[in-house]
Protein backbone atom coordinates (compact mmCIF):
# COMPACT_ATOMS: atom_id res chain seq x y z
CA UNK A 1 0.00 0.00 0.00
CA UNK A 2 2.86 2.36 0.90
CA UNK A 3 4.29 2.00 -2.59
CA UNK A 4 1.19 3.58 -4.09
CA UNK A 5 0.84 6.44 -1.61
CA UNK A 6 4.49 7.43 -1.48
CA UNK A 7 4.92 7.33 -5.24
CA UNK A 8 1.50 8.42 -6.31
CA UNK A 9 2.78 11.03 -8.76
CA UNK A 10 5.05 8.47 -10.41
CA UNK A 11 2.19 6.03 -10.79
CA UNK A 12 -0.12 8.77 -11.99
CA UNK A 13 2.43 9.79 -14.60
CA UNK A 14 2.77 6.22 -15.82
CA UNK A 15 -0.98 5.73 -15.79
CA UNK A 16 -1.56 8.91 -17.80
CA UNK A 17 1.21 7.85 -20.19
CA UNK A 18 -0.59 4.59 -20.87
CA UNK A 19 -3.94 6.36 -21.23
CA UNK A 20 -2.45 8.87 -23.67
CA UNK A 21 -0.77 6.15 -25.72
CA UNK A 22 -4.00 4.18 -25.81
CA UNK A 23 -6.17 7.15 -26.83
CA UNK A 24 -3.88 8.46 -29.58
CA UNK A 25 -3.04 5.02 -30.95
CA UNK A 26 -6.76 4.09 -30.91
CA UNK A 27 -7.62 7.18 -32.94
CA UNK A 28 -4.86 6.40 -35.45
CA UNK A 29 -5.91 2.74 -35.59
CA UNK A 30 -9.58 3.61 -36.14
CA UNK A 31 -8.81 6.07 -38.95
CA UNK A 32 -6.27 3.80 -40.66
CA UNK A 33 -8.45 0.75 -40.08
CA UNK A 34 -11.46 2.47 -41.65
CA UNK A 35 -9.33 3.53 -44.62
CA UNK A 36 -7.95 0.04 -45.11
CA UNK A 37 -11.38 -1.55 -44.71
CA UNK A 38 -12.77 0.71 -47.42
CA UNK A 39 -9.78 -0.25 -49.57
CA UNK A 40 -10.53 -3.91 -48.99
CA UNK A 41 -14.14 -3.66 -50.12
CA UNK A 42 -13.40 -1.22 -52.96
CA UNK A 43 -14.34 -2.27 -56.50
CA UNK A 44 -10.82 -1.37 -57.71
CA UNK A 45 -8.39 -4.27 -57.68
CA UNK A 46 -5.24 -2.43 -56.74
CA UNK A 47 -6.92 -0.85 -53.71
CA UNK A 48 -8.04 -4.27 -52.59
CA UNK A 49 -4.54 -5.65 -53.08
CA UNK A 50 -2.98 -2.82 -51.07
CA UNK A 51 -5.47 -3.31 -48.24
CA UNK A 52 -4.90 -7.06 -48.22
CA UNK A 53 -1.12 -6.71 -48.12
CA UNK A 54 -1.34 -4.14 -45.31
CA UNK A 55 -3.56 -6.38 -43.20
CA UNK A 56 -1.73 -9.64 -43.88
CA UNK A 57 1.72 -8.23 -43.19
CA UNK A 58 0.80 -6.31 -40.05
CA UNK A 59 -1.28 -9.11 -38.58
CA UNK A 60 1.69 -11.44 -38.89
CA UNK A 61 4.30 -9.03 -37.57
CA UNK A 62 5.36 -9.39 -33.94
CA UNK A 63 4.64 -6.04 -32.32
CA UNK A 64 8.10 -6.00 -30.73
CA UNK A 65 9.63 -6.27 -34.20
CA UNK A 66 7.45 -3.40 -35.40
CA UNK A 67 8.57 -1.25 -32.46
CA UNK A 68 12.18 -2.20 -33.20
CA UNK A 69 11.79 -1.25 -36.87
CA UNK A 70 9.95 2.01 -36.21
CA UNK A 71 11.93 3.28 -33.22
CA UNK A 72 15.35 2.28 -34.45
CA UNK A 73 14.79 2.20 -38.20
CA UNK A 74 12.94 5.44 -38.96
CA UNK A 75 15.64 7.68 -37.38
CA UNK A 76 18.03 6.16 -39.94
CA UNK A 77 16.05 8.03 -42.59
CA UNK A 78 16.63 11.24 -40.70
CA UNK A 79 13.12 11.11 -39.24
CA UNK A 80 13.75 12.06 -35.61
CA UNK A 81 10.57 12.26 -33.54
CA UNK A 82 9.85 11.87 -29.84
CA UNK A 83 9.62 8.23 -28.78
CA UNK A 84 6.00 8.74 -27.76
CA UNK A 85 5.10 9.59 -31.36
CA UNK A 86 6.96 6.57 -32.70
CA UNK A 87 5.17 4.37 -30.18
CA UNK A 88 1.78 5.76 -31.27
CA UNK A 89 2.67 5.10 -34.92
CA UNK A 90 3.75 1.51 -34.24
CA UNK A 91 0.75 0.69 -32.04
CA UNK A 92 -1.71 2.47 -34.32
CA UNK A 93 -0.53 0.78 -37.51
CA UNK A 94 -0.46 -2.63 -35.88
CA UNK A 95 -3.96 -2.32 -34.45
CA UNK A 96 -5.36 -0.83 -37.66
CA UNK A 97 -5.03 -4.25 -39.31
CA UNK A 98 -7.32 -5.80 -36.70
CA UNK A 99 -9.77 -2.88 -36.79
CA UNK A 100 -9.87 -3.24 -40.58
CA UNK A 101 -10.80 -6.90 -40.33
CA UNK A 102 -13.48 -6.22 -37.73
CA UNK A 103 -15.02 -3.49 -39.90
CA UNK A 104 -14.85 -5.60 -43.03
CA UNK A 105 -16.54 -8.58 -41.46
CA UNK A 106 -19.11 -6.13 -40.09
CA UNK A 107 -19.88 -4.88 -43.58
CA UNK A 108 -20.09 -8.46 -44.77
CA UNK A 109 -22.69 -9.34 -42.15
CA UNK A 110 -25.14 -6.91 -43.78
CA UNK A 111 -27.27 -9.08 -46.03
CA UNK A 112 -26.95 -8.45 -49.75
CA UNK A 113 -30.69 -7.93 -50.00
CA UNK A 114 -30.41 -4.77 -47.91
CA UNK A 115 -28.23 -3.08 -50.52
CA UNK A 116 -30.31 -4.40 -53.36
CA UNK A 117 -33.49 -3.15 -51.75
CA UNK A 118 -31.93 0.27 -51.16
CA UNK A 119 -30.80 0.54 -54.75
CA UNK A 120 -34.15 -0.63 -56.08
CA UNK A 121 -35.70 2.23 -54.11
CA UNK A 122 -33.46 4.48 -56.20
CA UNK A 123 -30.93 5.34 -53.52
CA UNK A 124 -27.52 6.51 -54.65
CA UNK A 125 -24.30 4.79 -53.59
CA UNK A 126 -23.65 7.33 -50.83
CA UNK A 127 -27.18 6.96 -49.55
CA UNK A 128 -26.98 3.16 -49.61
CA UNK A 129 -23.70 3.23 -47.73
CA UNK A 130 -24.58 5.99 -45.29
CA UNK A 131 -28.16 5.20 -44.38
CA UNK A 132 -28.47 1.46 -44.93
CA UNK A 133 -25.21 -0.49 -44.85
CA UNK A 134 -22.96 1.38 -42.41
CA UNK A 135 -25.53 1.84 -39.61
CA UNK A 136 -26.20 -1.89 -39.65
CA UNK A 137 -22.52 -2.75 -39.89
CA UNK A 138 -21.69 -0.33 -37.07
CA UNK A 139 -23.91 -2.22 -34.68
CA UNK A 140 -22.33 -5.57 -35.26
CA UNK A 141 -18.75 -4.29 -35.06
CA UNK A 142 -19.03 -2.65 -31.63
CA UNK A 143 -18.00 -5.71 -29.60
CA UNK A 144 -15.02 -6.80 -31.76
CA UNK A 145 -13.70 -3.24 -31.95
CA UNK A 146 -14.02 -2.98 -28.19
CA UNK A 147 -11.91 -6.07 -27.64
CA UNK A 148 -9.38 -4.89 -30.22
CA UNK A 149 -8.95 -1.61 -28.37
CA UNK A 150 -8.61 -3.45 -25.07
CA UNK A 151 -5.82 -5.47 -26.68
CA UNK A 152 -4.27 -2.19 -27.82
CA UNK A 153 -4.25 -0.86 -24.27
CA UNK A 154 -2.54 -4.05 -23.11
CA UNK A 155 -0.07 -3.94 -25.98
CA UNK A 156 0.97 -0.40 -25.05
CA UNK A 157 3.04 -1.96 -22.25
CA UNK A 158 5.71 -2.77 -24.84
CA UNK A 159 6.35 0.93 -25.32
CA UNK A 160 7.65 1.12 -21.76
CA UNK A 161 10.57 -1.10 -22.70
CA UNK A 162 11.46 1.43 -25.42
CA UNK A 163 11.89 4.35 -23.01
CA UNK A 164 8.35 5.74 -23.27
CA UNK A 165 6.75 6.83 -20.00
CA UNK A 166 3.93 4.40 -19.27
CA UNK A 167 2.57 2.25 -16.48
CA UNK A 168 4.71 -0.88 -16.71
CA UNK A 169 7.90 1.19 -16.94
CA UNK A 170 7.36 2.60 -13.44
CA UNK A 171 8.54 -0.70 -11.95
CA UNK A 172 12.14 0.16 -12.90
CA UNK A 173 12.25 3.35 -10.83
CA UNK A 174 10.44 1.75 -7.89
CA UNK A 175 12.75 -1.25 -7.97
CA UNK A 176 15.74 1.10 -7.87
CA UNK A 177 14.20 2.86 -4.88
CA UNK A 178 13.97 -0.47 -3.12
CA UNK A 179 10.21 -0.89 -2.77
CA UNK A 180 8.52 -4.25 -2.48
CA UNK A 181 8.49 -5.50 -6.04
CA UNK A 182 5.37 -7.64 -5.57
CA UNK A 183 3.27 -4.68 -4.43
CA UNK A 184 4.70 -2.53 -7.18
CA UNK A 185 3.36 -5.01 -9.70
CA UNK A 186 0.03 -5.38 -7.92
CA UNK A 187 -0.64 -1.67 -8.39
CA UNK A 188 0.55 -1.78 -11.99
CA UNK A 189 -1.91 -4.63 -12.59
CA UNK A 190 -4.71 -2.61 -10.94
CA UNK A 191 -3.87 0.30 -13.25
CA UNK A 192 -4.21 -1.86 -16.35
CA UNK A 193 -7.45 -3.37 -15.06
CA UNK A 194 -8.88 0.14 -14.58
CA UNK A 195 -8.05 1.03 -18.17
CA UNK A 196 -9.30 -2.18 -19.76
CA UNK A 197 -12.47 -2.27 -17.66
CA UNK A 198 -13.20 1.35 -18.58
CA UNK A 199 -12.91 0.55 -22.27
CA UNK A 200 -15.12 -2.50 -21.93
CA UNK A 201 -17.71 -0.53 -19.94
CA UNK A 202 -17.68 2.17 -22.60
CA UNK A 203 -18.31 -0.35 -25.33
CA UNK A 204 -21.01 -2.06 -23.29
CA UNK A 205 -22.85 1.25 -23.14
CA UNK A 206 -22.37 1.72 -26.88
CA UNK A 207 -23.65 -1.75 -27.54
CA UNK A 208 -26.68 -1.26 -25.32
CA UNK A 209 -27.56 1.93 -27.16
CA UNK A 210 -26.78 0.92 -30.72
CA UNK A 211 -26.20 -2.82 -30.75
CA UNK A 212 -28.46 -5.44 -32.24
CA UNK A 213 -28.89 -9.03 -31.34
CA UNK A 214 -28.33 -11.03 -34.48
Amino acid sequence: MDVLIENFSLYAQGFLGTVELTVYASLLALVLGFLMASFRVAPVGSFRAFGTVWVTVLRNTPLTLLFFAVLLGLPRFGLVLPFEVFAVIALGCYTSAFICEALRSGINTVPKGQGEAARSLGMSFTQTLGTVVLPQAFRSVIPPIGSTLIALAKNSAIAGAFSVTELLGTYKTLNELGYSIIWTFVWIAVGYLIITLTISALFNVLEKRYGVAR
Partner: protein
Amino acid sequence: MHHARGLRRRLALLLAVLVVLLGPAATGCGREGSPPVKGPQPEDLPDYHVATGFQLPDSRTWERARKRGRLVIGVKEDQPYLGEKDPASGRYSGFDIEIAKMLAASLGFDPDRQIEFRTVASANRETALQNGQIDYYVGTYTINDNRKKQVGFAGPYYLAGQSLLVRKDEKDIHGPGDLKGKKVCSAAGSTPLQRMQKEHPEAVLVSYDTYSVCVDNLLTYQVDAVTTDDTILLGYAAKVPDELKVVGKPFSTEPYGIGVPRGDTALRLALDDALAEHEKNGDWKKAYDATLGLSGNPAPKPPAIDRYPAS
Protein backbone atom coordinates in the same frame (compact mmCIF):
# COMPACT_ATOMS: atom_id res chain seq x y z
CA MET B 1 -10.02 -25.76 -62.33
CA HIS B 2 -10.11 -22.64 -60.22
CA HIS B 3 -9.36 -24.64 -57.12
CA ALA B 4 -6.34 -26.38 -58.65
CA ARG B 5 -4.84 -23.07 -59.68
CA GLY B 6 -5.28 -21.71 -56.18
CA LEU B 7 -3.58 -24.73 -54.74
CA ARG B 8 -0.65 -24.43 -57.10
CA ARG B 9 -0.23 -20.77 -56.22
CA ARG B 10 -0.25 -21.59 -52.54
CA LEU B 11 2.33 -24.31 -53.02
CA ALA B 12 4.54 -21.88 -54.91
CA LEU B 13 4.26 -19.36 -52.09
CA LEU B 14 5.07 -22.03 -49.54
CA LEU B 15 8.15 -22.99 -51.53
CA ALA B 16 9.26 -19.38 -51.76
CA VAL B 17 8.94 -18.93 -48.01
CA LEU B 18 10.88 -22.11 -47.35
CA VAL B 19 13.68 -20.98 -49.66
CA VAL B 20 13.90 -17.66 -47.86
CA LEU B 21 13.94 -19.41 -44.50
CA LEU B 22 16.34 -22.18 -45.21
CA GLY B 23 18.46 -20.58 -47.92
CA PRO B 24 21.31 -19.28 -45.81
CA ALA B 25 21.37 -22.34 -43.61
CA ALA B 26 21.29 -24.92 -46.35
CA THR B 27 23.83 -23.39 -48.64
CA GLY B 28 26.23 -22.54 -45.83
CA CYS B 29 27.78 -19.96 -48.08
CA GLY B 30 29.46 -17.93 -45.39
CA ARG B 31 32.93 -16.59 -45.18
CA GLU B 32 34.71 -18.28 -42.33
CA GLY B 33 35.11 -16.52 -39.04
CA SER B 34 33.69 -13.17 -38.18
CA PRO B 35 33.76 -9.68 -39.61
CA PRO B 36 36.75 -7.63 -38.45
CA VAL B 37 35.99 -5.64 -35.32
CA LYS B 38 38.04 -3.06 -33.57
CA GLY B 39 38.67 -3.89 -29.98
CA PRO B 40 41.49 -4.34 -27.52
CA GLN B 41 44.26 -6.43 -29.09
CA PRO B 42 44.80 -9.68 -27.21
CA GLU B 43 48.60 -9.31 -27.23
CA ASP B 44 48.38 -5.92 -25.51
CA LEU B 45 46.25 -7.19 -22.64
CA PRO B 46 48.01 -8.07 -19.40
CA ASP B 47 48.23 -11.65 -18.11
CA TYR B 48 47.01 -12.08 -14.58
CA HIS B 49 48.66 -14.30 -12.05
CA VAL B 50 46.18 -16.96 -10.97
CA ALA B 51 46.26 -17.41 -7.21
CA THR B 52 46.86 -21.01 -6.17
CA GLY B 53 45.44 -22.51 -3.05
CA PHE B 54 43.10 -19.55 -2.49
CA GLN B 55 40.32 -20.34 -0.02
CA LEU B 56 37.26 -18.34 0.99
CA PRO B 57 35.08 -20.71 3.02
CA ASP B 58 33.04 -17.85 4.54
CA SER B 59 31.66 -16.88 1.15
CA ARG B 60 28.67 -18.87 -0.08
CA THR B 61 29.12 -17.43 -3.54
CA TRP B 62 32.76 -18.45 -3.75
CA GLU B 63 32.03 -21.97 -2.50
CA ARG B 64 29.29 -22.38 -5.07
CA ALA B 65 31.59 -21.18 -7.85
CA ARG B 66 34.34 -23.56 -6.70
CA LYS B 67 31.95 -26.52 -6.81
CA ARG B 68 30.75 -25.40 -10.25
CA GLY B 69 34.35 -25.11 -11.41
CA ARG B 70 33.90 -21.63 -12.85
CA LEU B 71 32.78 -18.12 -12.03
CA VAL B 72 29.69 -16.63 -13.66
CA ILE B 73 30.19 -12.89 -14.05
CA GLY B 74 27.51 -10.44 -15.14
CA VAL B 75 28.66 -7.81 -17.65
CA LYS B 76 27.41 -5.49 -20.38
CA GLU B 77 27.58 -6.36 -24.04
CA ASP B 78 27.13 -3.10 -25.90
CA GLN B 79 29.83 -0.73 -24.65
CA PRO B 80 32.97 -0.66 -26.78
CA TYR B 81 36.28 -0.98 -24.91
CA LEU B 82 34.33 -1.29 -21.65
CA GLY B 83 32.10 -4.33 -21.90
CA GLU B 84 31.48 -5.42 -25.46
CA LYS B 85 30.49 -8.73 -27.01
CA ASP B 86 31.67 -9.53 -30.48
CA PRO B 87 28.40 -10.58 -32.14
CA ALA B 88 30.02 -13.23 -34.26
CA SER B 89 32.54 -14.90 -31.97
CA GLY B 90 30.67 -14.26 -28.71
CA ARG B 91 33.88 -13.05 -27.00
CA TYR B 92 33.70 -10.24 -24.47
CA SER B 93 36.30 -7.48 -24.22
CA GLY B 94 36.94 -4.14 -22.55
CA PHE B 95 38.06 -2.45 -19.35
CA ASP B 96 35.25 -3.85 -17.18
CA ILE B 97 35.99 -7.29 -18.57
CA GLU B 98 39.67 -6.91 -17.62
CA ILE B 99 38.70 -5.88 -14.09
CA ALA B 100 36.45 -8.94 -13.89
CA LYS B 101 39.30 -11.15 -15.11
CA MET B 102 41.97 -9.84 -12.74
CA LEU B 103 39.64 -10.28 -9.78
CA ALA B 104 38.80 -13.80 -10.90
CA ALA B 105 42.51 -14.61 -11.05
CA SER B 106 42.91 -13.46 -7.46
CA LEU B 107 40.00 -15.66 -6.40
CA GLY B 108 41.81 -18.64 -7.88
CA PHE B 109 39.97 -18.95 -11.20
CA ASP B 110 41.79 -19.01 -14.54
CA PRO B 111 40.52 -15.98 -16.51
CA ASP B 112 40.83 -17.82 -19.83
CA ARG B 113 39.10 -21.03 -18.92
CA GLN B 114 37.11 -20.70 -15.72
CA ILE B 115 34.97 -17.63 -16.37
CA GLU B 116 31.58 -17.54 -17.97
CA PHE B 117 30.46 -14.02 -18.89
CA ARG B 118 26.76 -13.38 -18.99
CA THR B 119 25.05 -10.28 -20.32
CA VAL B 120 22.78 -8.71 -17.73
CA ALA B 121 20.69 -5.66 -18.60
CA SER B 122 20.94 -2.68 -16.25
CA ALA B 123 17.40 -3.13 -14.99
CA ASN B 124 18.07 -6.70 -13.90
CA ARG B 125 21.41 -6.38 -12.13
CA GLU B 126 20.04 -6.49 -8.60
CA THR B 127 17.78 -9.41 -9.42
CA ALA B 128 20.56 -11.41 -11.02
CA LEU B 129 22.77 -10.94 -7.95
CA GLN B 130 20.00 -11.59 -5.45
CA ASN B 131 18.97 -14.93 -6.89
CA GLY B 132 22.46 -16.14 -7.64
CA GLN B 133 22.29 -16.11 -11.44
CA ILE B 134 25.71 -14.43 -11.36
CA ASP B 135 28.53 -14.43 -8.79
CA TYR B 136 29.48 -10.80 -9.25
CA TYR B 137 28.78 -7.99 -11.67
CA VAL B 138 31.19 -5.60 -13.38
CA GLY B 139 29.56 -3.14 -15.78
CA THR B 140 29.36 0.63 -15.24
CA TYR B 141 27.57 -0.02 -11.96
CA THR B 142 27.35 3.22 -9.96
CA ILE B 143 27.47 2.78 -6.19
CA ASN B 144 24.61 4.53 -4.39
CA ASP B 145 22.73 4.14 -1.14
CA ASN B 146 19.53 2.84 -2.65
CA ARG B 147 21.35 0.05 -4.42
CA LYS B 148 23.35 -0.71 -1.28
CA LYS B 149 20.05 -1.77 0.29
CA GLN B 150 19.83 -4.56 -2.26
CA VAL B 151 23.38 -5.55 -3.18
CA GLY B 152 26.92 -5.20 -1.85
CA PHE B 153 29.61 -3.19 -3.61
CA ALA B 154 33.34 -3.91 -3.73
CA GLY B 155 35.54 -1.09 -4.93
CA PRO B 156 35.04 1.50 -6.37
CA TYR B 157 37.48 0.56 -9.11
CA TYR B 158 36.92 3.68 -11.22
CA LEU B 159 35.58 7.16 -10.61
CA ALA B 160 33.49 8.03 -13.65
CA GLY B 161 31.53 11.20 -14.27
CA GLN B 162 29.24 12.64 -16.89
CA SER B 163 31.25 14.22 -19.67
CA LEU B 164 31.04 15.24 -23.33
CA LEU B 165 32.14 13.47 -26.49
CA VAL B 166 32.76 15.70 -29.51
CA ARG B 167 34.37 15.49 -32.92
CA LYS B 168 38.13 16.01 -32.99
CA ASP B 169 37.72 19.17 -35.11
CA GLU B 170 35.24 20.72 -32.67
CA LYS B 171 36.48 24.12 -31.50
CA ASP B 172 33.53 25.61 -29.63
CA ILE B 173 32.71 22.99 -27.04
CA HIS B 174 35.15 22.63 -24.14
CA GLY B 175 32.73 21.80 -21.38
CA PRO B 176 29.08 21.82 -20.39
CA GLY B 177 29.11 25.63 -20.33
CA ASP B 178 29.45 25.86 -24.11
CA LEU B 179 26.30 23.99 -25.08
CA LYS B 180 23.97 26.90 -25.80
CA GLY B 181 21.99 25.99 -28.92
CA LYS B 182 24.12 22.89 -29.55
CA LYS B 183 22.54 19.54 -30.30
CA VAL B 184 23.39 17.08 -27.55
CA CYS B 185 22.55 13.39 -27.72
CA SER B 186 22.01 10.78 -25.01
CA ALA B 187 20.09 7.58 -24.42
CA ALA B 188 16.35 8.01 -23.94
CA GLY B 189 15.25 7.91 -20.33
CA SER B 190 18.81 7.79 -18.96
CA THR B 191 20.06 9.66 -15.88
CA PRO B 192 22.61 11.70 -17.91
CA LEU B 193 19.80 12.92 -20.16
CA GLN B 194 17.68 13.94 -17.18
CA ARG B 195 20.63 15.77 -15.59
CA MET B 196 21.22 17.59 -18.87
CA GLN B 197 17.56 18.67 -19.02
CA LYS B 198 17.74 20.01 -15.49
CA GLU B 199 21.16 21.65 -15.44
CA HIS B 200 21.64 22.74 -19.05
CA PRO B 201 18.24 23.56 -20.52
CA GLU B 202 20.00 25.82 -23.05
CA ALA B 203 21.22 22.77 -24.99
CA VAL B 204 19.04 21.14 -27.65
CA LEU B 205 18.52 17.54 -26.53
CA VAL B 206 18.16 14.57 -28.85
CA SER B 207 17.66 11.02 -27.61
CA TYR B 208 17.95 7.57 -29.15
CA ASP B 209 17.59 4.08 -27.86
CA THR B 210 21.31 3.32 -27.84
CA TYR B 211 24.51 5.32 -27.51
CA SER B 212 26.00 3.83 -30.66
CA VAL B 213 23.31 5.63 -32.66
CA CYS B 214 24.22 8.90 -30.90
CA VAL B 215 27.86 8.38 -31.80
CA ASP B 216 27.00 7.64 -35.41
CA ASN B 217 25.01 10.88 -35.54
CA LEU B 218 27.97 12.72 -34.06
CA LEU B 219 30.27 11.34 -36.75
CA THR B 220 27.83 12.36 -39.47
CA TYR B 221 27.40 15.90 -38.09
CA GLN B 222 23.75 15.37 -37.07
CA VAL B 223 24.51 16.28 -33.46
CA ASP B 224 27.34 18.28 -31.86
CA ALA B 225 28.01 16.30 -28.70
CA VAL B 226 27.16 13.06 -26.93
CA THR B 227 26.84 13.03 -23.17
CA THR B 228 26.95 10.24 -20.59
CA ASP B 229 29.55 8.71 -18.22
CA ASP B 230 33.07 9.49 -19.43
CA THR B 231 33.98 5.78 -19.44
CA ILE B 232 31.39 5.01 -22.09
CA LEU B 233 32.48 8.05 -24.09
CA LEU B 234 36.16 7.09 -23.77
CA GLY B 235 35.27 3.68 -25.16
CA TYR B 236 33.82 5.22 -28.31
CA ALA B 237 36.74 7.63 -28.57
CA ALA B 238 39.10 4.64 -28.33
CA LYS B 239 37.31 3.12 -31.31
CA VAL B 240 37.95 6.11 -33.59
CA PRO B 241 40.63 8.18 -31.80
CA ASP B 242 41.32 10.19 -34.97
CA GLU B 243 37.78 11.49 -35.14
CA LEU B 244 36.46 11.75 -31.59
CA LYS B 245 37.63 13.15 -28.27
CA VAL B 246 36.28 13.52 -24.74
CA VAL B 247 36.41 17.10 -23.46
CA GLY B 248 35.96 18.97 -20.21
CA LYS B 249 35.94 18.01 -16.57
CA PRO B 250 33.33 15.44 -15.60
CA PHE B 251 30.31 17.22 -14.10
CA SER B 252 29.05 14.42 -11.89
CA THR B 253 30.60 11.66 -9.78
CA GLU B 254 29.81 8.05 -10.53
CA PRO B 255 31.93 5.66 -8.47
CA TYR B 256 31.82 2.28 -10.26
CA GLY B 257 31.66 -0.71 -7.97
CA ILE B 258 31.66 -4.46 -8.35
CA GLY B 259 28.23 -5.75 -7.44
CA VAL B 260 28.12 -8.79 -5.13
CA PRO B 261 25.24 -10.54 -3.36
CA ARG B 262 24.27 -8.35 -0.41
CA GLY B 263 24.95 -10.69 2.49
CA ASP B 264 28.28 -11.96 1.19
CA THR B 265 30.68 -9.65 3.07
CA ALA B 266 33.53 -12.17 2.83
CA LEU B 267 33.47 -12.06 -0.96
CA ARG B 268 33.15 -8.27 -0.98
CA LEU B 269 36.20 -7.77 1.23
CA ALA B 270 38.19 -10.38 -0.70
CA LEU B 271 37.44 -8.48 -3.91
CA ASP B 272 38.49 -5.22 -2.21
CA ASP B 273 41.82 -6.83 -1.28
CA ALA B 274 42.30 -8.20 -4.77
CA LEU B 275 41.53 -4.84 -6.34
CA ALA B 276 44.01 -3.04 -4.07
CA GLU B 277 46.68 -5.55 -5.01
CA HIS B 278 46.11 -5.17 -8.76
CA GLU B 279 46.11 -1.40 -8.46
CA LYS B 280 49.48 -1.62 -6.67
CA ASN B 281 51.18 -4.11 -9.00
CA GLY B 282 50.26 -2.16 -12.12
CA ASP B 283 47.67 -4.53 -13.62
CA TRP B 284 44.95 -1.91 -13.27
CA LYS B 285 46.91 0.67 -15.27
CA LYS B 286 47.95 -1.88 -17.91
CA ALA B 287 44.32 -2.87 -18.37
CA TYR B 288 43.31 0.78 -18.72
CA ASP B 289 46.07 1.52 -21.22
CA ALA B 290 45.13 -1.46 -23.40
CA THR B 291 41.44 -0.48 -23.48
CA LEU B 292 40.05 2.97 -22.62
CA GLY B 293 43.57 4.47 -22.79
CA LEU B 294 43.51 4.06 -26.58
CA SER B 295 41.24 7.10 -26.64
CA GLY B 296 44.30 9.23 -25.89
CA ASN B 297 43.20 10.14 -22.37
CA PRO B 298 45.85 9.09 -19.81
CA ALA B 299 44.97 6.75 -16.97
CA PRO B 300 43.59 8.55 -13.91
CA LYS B 301 44.49 7.53 -10.38
CA PRO B 302 42.21 4.73 -9.18
CA PRO B 303 39.81 5.94 -6.45
CA ALA B 304 40.19 4.98 -2.79
CA ILE B 305 38.52 1.69 -1.98
CA ASP B 306 35.57 1.94 0.38
CA ARG B 307 35.71 -1.04 2.76
CA TYR B 308 32.43 -0.29 4.49
CA PRO B 309 31.45 -2.53 7.42
CA ALA B 310 28.79 -5.20 7.13
CA SER B 311 25.37 -4.00 8.18
